[in-house]
């Protein structure tokens, strides 16, 4: 499910902050530990592997993979 990161490829997820309910479910399923919930927003660090688990399980569909 997780793919190795390729050099030069822009990876990550974008979070629609206007949709996000800041519940932290995405943080719990991130295998890389790349996400963090702070108050009312989600931060994504550069360890994201683009696996898509967070986007899949988001109850409101606020996350999207950035290829």
């Amino acid at each position, binding site marked *: 499910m997780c793919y190795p990161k390729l050099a030069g490829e822009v990876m990550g997820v974008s979070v629609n902050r206007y949709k996000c309910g800041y*519940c*932290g*479910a995405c943080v*719990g*399923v991130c*295998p890389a*530990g790349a996400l963090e919930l*702070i*108050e009312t927003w989600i931060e994504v660090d550069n360890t994201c592997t683009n696996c898509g688990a967070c986007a899949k399980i988001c109850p*409101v569909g606020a996350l999207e993979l950035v290829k």
Partner: protein
Amino acid sequence: MKGRYDVIIVGAGPGGSITAKTCSEGGLDVLLIEKRQEIGDPVRCAEGVGKDALKKHIEPDNKWIASEVKGSMLIAPDGTEIKMSEDASSNMKVGYVLERKIFDRTLAQKAAMAGAEVMVKTRAIGLLRSNGMVTGIKAMYMGETHEIKTDIVIGADGIESKVGRWGGIDTSLKPGDIETGVQFLVSNIDPGEYNKFYLGEKYAPGGYQWIFPKGEHTANVGLGILGSKSGNIRAISLLQRFLEIHMPQAKIVEMVVGGVPVSGPIKQTVTNGLMLVGDAARQSDPLTGGGITNAMDAGKMAGEVCIKAKEKGDYSVKTLKEYEDKWRATIGKELAKSLRVKNLLIKLTDEQLNQLAHSLKDTDSSKMELLSLLLVLFKKNPKLLWELRTLFK
């Protein structure tokens, strides 16, 4: 804030606060941190809790009890109703629906009154380590980083727990190990006197949809679906559809979102100088999603082990393992049972669920608890439920 404590607890939910209270009452120097500005808010919970399980920890108080229900009602996909535990005079579990915002704050206050220092808007951002032991945390408060030393760190940091991962415990959940949910607090309805659970693919694939009355014509109406079934369908769309069809008059006064671990017991919850409690330890029930009283039970156990560790002056796994052994022998056993039932239930079609409900036609289930109900179901439908044959021993 001081530079050093006996125990630092990360997360001021029910698990964290009970750990803090237990440790403080045992004479330990305790810091309880909460990353949010407000303890208990925003809520990420359907707020249902078993009466007896709760009373072990706290005297019920109307300040944080929104309503008391007569029992539970399971509703099959075709609408067949199964009533459970309605007789309040029996010792069956009759539930409260909580006001978590007040409840969580009350528990934190109790920890504070017992002597714990409480800090809000304070987020753990890493662990301090020395000679293979966790020896403290790095925390951020108001944009500034602080290093705080301690003998034991308790990770009570919920579904999004980082403390375990920092300590080398892999707590990441697979999509099939999480229920992803949405709930509305709705007004202008008459929810009745039972907690209602709607089962079936059309309501909530791999989960259930619930209505928990909160008094005064309000209720928590929500649903959780298995993460592995989420994606093309979203919890929020299913809930919006349910409201349109079944409660067109309902007015939404609050929205709640959240994930519930349903992995069952994980392999490891302690390491040198660190223990995990509650949702962070994935101690929520895989079948019901209930996690409040499990977290409180675990918090008490963890707190007691902290006190022993302090007496011995040893904070290694050797001493902390007692917590792990204790919760596995109690909470862990229940989780494992629930996981088996959940794993079977998510495989059943709506037709099969209807069949199960119909098989109870001549059974008075009203005074039964879940396990006794399952046993009756098993006896009537052995082929369908064959996987559960060893559950009742």
